[in-house]
């Protein structure tokens, strides 16, 4: 699964730290999602989509291997 969390974060001009605080997770979690090391739960994905005011599909996209 790919994501453009980093891009969305750049558009909003917000650090990992700040985003993590707003969503209520650790900075490690945000960092690992951006590095495609961690697939967030549906709940966390929905929280992120709510925060950026986009649909989950705009942020996360399936890859061929999924």
């Amino acid at each position: 699964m790919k994501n453009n969390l980093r891009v969305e974060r750049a558009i909003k001009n917000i650090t990992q730290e700040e985003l993590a605080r707003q969503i209520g997770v650790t900075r490690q979690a945000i960092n690992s999602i951006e590095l495609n090391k961690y697939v967030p739960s549906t709940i966390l994905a929905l929280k992120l989509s709510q925060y950026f005011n986009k649909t989950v599909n705009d942020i996360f996209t399936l890859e061929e291997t999924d």
Partner: protein
Amino acid sequence: MVPSTILGIACIFYDFSFNFLDIKVFAIFSDDFFGSDTVFGLGKNNITDEIVGVLFIIGALLVAFSKEKNEDEFIEKTRWESLVWATYINYFILIFCFLFFYNTSFLWVMIFNMFTILIFFILRFYFIIIMLKKSLGHEK
């Protein structure tokens, strides 16, 4: 956990025990090399090692499964992964010991094996957490 670890090591390697802890204990089953077996009866035993063992397990469980200050789903996932990892490693080592340790040495293997799964878990979990914190650095 730390004091019970030290006491545990003392118990194992130096035959350490508190004399005042020689008491009668209730045993569900206990067999004696030179006497008769006891089923649901009382027997005399020094309970230093029992107390130390219980304290160690409780301490290790607390260290292992207390929530982090900021526990989230990612930390939780790391926790599960570490537990699975610790189980694998523990049993691989046990298989190795099965094959290469015999008699009394194997008894020692069994004694240590009671605690190693928790120890491996704690080491791996905190190692991962610390590595993650380090790798974050000052990334924007």
